[in-house]
């Protein structure tokens, strides 16, 4: 039923004959899925707010974008492309786990989950190496707001990935304890969805953090933040 339908119910009327019999036949969405949807919504709001502040901050004079001129770190962003590739593979591995789950292939499932987790960790390590690269070039956290945002946003993204790893670890652990695949469908699918979400989020971050000043001006104007 639509939200409008629900909100216009008249609960004070006596229950119609036979309604009671219908209960229990409605579609049943696992709790993990519902709460994951909410969680992804919350994380989106969280990063959205960062983006808004980022775009408006990008229009101040002292903001030096990380790309544009040849000497700037992300004018050629091949490092970030490699990292993106790793994260894509992590997502593919998780999706593979979901397929394995549907076909009940437990060995393939475990291998894919392990691959998903390891690739995610690799991604985090590579991100740290990007930080070191920036540090070495003299692009410290406080040197410029563009750098500050780069460290904060990639750091928070990595933290979310770590949270996902903890959740995945708990799922695998409970699987190991009772081997009950059937009851873990929702949880594993949720982990895969979370990985895809963080991949998407990373791509957005990648795009946002490596634009030239002209593009920022354009985005700011489009959002009315100029």
């Amino acid at each position, binding site marked *: *039923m639509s*939200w409008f339908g*629900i*909100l*216009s*119910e*008249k*609960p*004070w*009327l*006596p*229950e119609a004959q036979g*309604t*009671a019999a219908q*209960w*229990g036949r*409605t*579609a*049943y*969405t*696992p*709790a993990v899925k*519902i*709460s994951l949807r*909410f*969680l992804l*919504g*919350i994380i989106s*709001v*969280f990063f959205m*707010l*960062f983006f808004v*502040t980022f775009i*408006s*901050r990008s229009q*101040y*004079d*002292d*903001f030096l974008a990380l790309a544009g001129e040849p000497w700037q770190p992300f004018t050629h962003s091949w490092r970030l492309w490699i990292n993106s590739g790793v994260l894509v593979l992590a997502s593919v591995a998780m999706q593979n786990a979901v397929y394995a789950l549907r076909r009940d292939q437990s060995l393939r499932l475990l291998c894919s989950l392990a691959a998903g987790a390891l690739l995610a960790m690799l991604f985090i390590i590579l991100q740290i190496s990007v930080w070191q690269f920036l540090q070495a070039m003299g692009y410290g*956290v*406080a040197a410029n*707001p563009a750098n*500050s945002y780069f460290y*904060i946003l990639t750091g*928070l993204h990595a933290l979310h990935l770590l949270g996902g790893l903890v959740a995945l670890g708990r799922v695998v652990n409970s699987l190991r304890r009772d081997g009950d695949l059937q009851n873990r469908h929702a949880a594993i699918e949720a982990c895969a969805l979370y990985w895809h979400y963080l991949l998407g989020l990373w791509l957005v971050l990648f795009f946002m953090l490596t634009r030239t000043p002209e593009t920022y001006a354009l985005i700011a104007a489009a959002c009315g933040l100029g």
Partner: protein
Amino acid sequence: MTHIAIADQTAHLHHPKTFIGKYIWSQDHKVIAIQYSVTAIFVGLIALLLSVLMRLQLGFPGQFNFITPDAYLQFVTMHGMIMVIYLLTALLLGGFGNYLIPLMVGTRDMVFPYLNMLSYWFYLVSVIVLMSSFFVTGGPTGAGWTLYPPQSILAGTPGAGSGIVLMLLSLAIFIVAFTMGGLNYVTTIFQARTRGMTLMRMPLTIWGILTATILGLLAFPALLVSAIMMLFDATLGTSFFMPAIVSLGEPLNHEGGSPILFQHLFWFFGHPEVYIVALPAFGMVSDVLSVHARKNIFGYRMMVWAIVIIGGLSFIVWAHHMYVSGMNPYFGFFFATTTLIIAVPTAIKVYNWVLTLWKGNIHLTVPMLFAIGFIFTFTHGGLSGLFLGNVVVDLPLSDTFFVVAHFHMVMGVSPIMVLFAALYHWFPLVSGKQLHTGLGKLHFWGTFLGTYAIYLPMHYLGFLGVPRRYYALGDTSFIPESAHVLNEDITIAAIIVALFQLVFVANVIWTLRSGPRSVRNPWGVASLEWHTPDVPPVHGNWGDALPTVHRWAYDYSVPGAKQDFIPQHVAEEDVEYEAGGRRSGEGE
């Protein structure tokens, strides 16, 4: 969207055996609720003590040596933050939300009990981190609960070193705790309701808690974002919010940041926050009024809609806190308009509460007294809000005691009134014992009249131009001598009100230790929470089988029915009617 839980998982409920498993590392929503409530009330008492200290300074300036200007500002800040976040938010959602959601929608527990437990422990850590700032060098932050940079992290503001860092850390931990709890509440409400419990059959308490939780889940991220950025500014020297600035004669390393950005983020959280506190209170007071007037709530659907609409609108009014920060006049116009629009659904709710009482069979029990008291205080606070919502009226009144009076009436006293109504109302359910009525009435009159004695004169002080967050007024030509006399009176009233709270504490202790056992469902309530097999409910709540719901929660004084209320789980066939009095089919 109606997802009704078929899985009734008694088998999976794991009953802890040891004392520690039962009461410390508990995953039972009821125990977690009590842990939340006790912790929140404890910090609330500390905040109350801080307010008395502030009042001592304002009423009798210079008489108390230990209240230095720095200490005064630290008391103000900690008082405000504790009251809003660590008491009201935690008690309403972590305490009442946890206790009532599973019982009112008919589940055995929250959908993720483990996460629920973690939520409490994170909350406790956030409280400990906050309290630890009293003991670090420099003390807690004195920046005001709004924590505006640049002053909050600059030398010269009390607690600008570790105090502010601990405050921001504590807030971040609190937000994590809230998110874990909040996900549980919404998922439980959406997914795990028992058979027949459609969304529109839920008591308004649950609607209030649900909407407030969603607001919290969407608004707290703004506070988290600003807390993280400010932590970076304070510790790593970034310039998110910090402009180029000269402090104590030295130019600092910051450059180009925007303090106004912080204000936007803060209030994008801050205004919804006031409704995070208000909406659960709206819900609970509706239920208390309906039960104790033995009448169905007037305009149930309108009440639900109003809750949802207020929740939505609360995200587009935030800049009414920033009229004096300087903004485009069209912005001011926009935010003034949305602010005044939000008064419409709010007023509808007030009318509906009054109409619920109209021709009701009003029992002036202690919960009912507090609920009626709430209607008064909330109306007062709401009306002064209408004044402040207009830019031209706000400019002279902003940062005066008029604002202090407004928000204390509306979000200080009013939710506290509801909290007391709720505590007296649900105490027999939680403990099996009923609080002493005489002491309760004493507590009510002391609190109700006392808070008026405190806050009504503050409106007048505001008109005189007495500024807020000032340690002392000194010799200020435009403030007459009478203002000082008034300040003394307010302080005396505040001390009396604080003492009256001890009546409540004594009542709770006495009742728990030697009060008589209460009868089952003493107020004759129709909603599910009073109809568990055991009262107080035990682990798993519902014994062998979950209840099936056949009606809304407000069947009071149904014409023709023998009993003056029909519990939610009683089917139409099973209702006993007086001979010939069977209710006809249509609604009223």
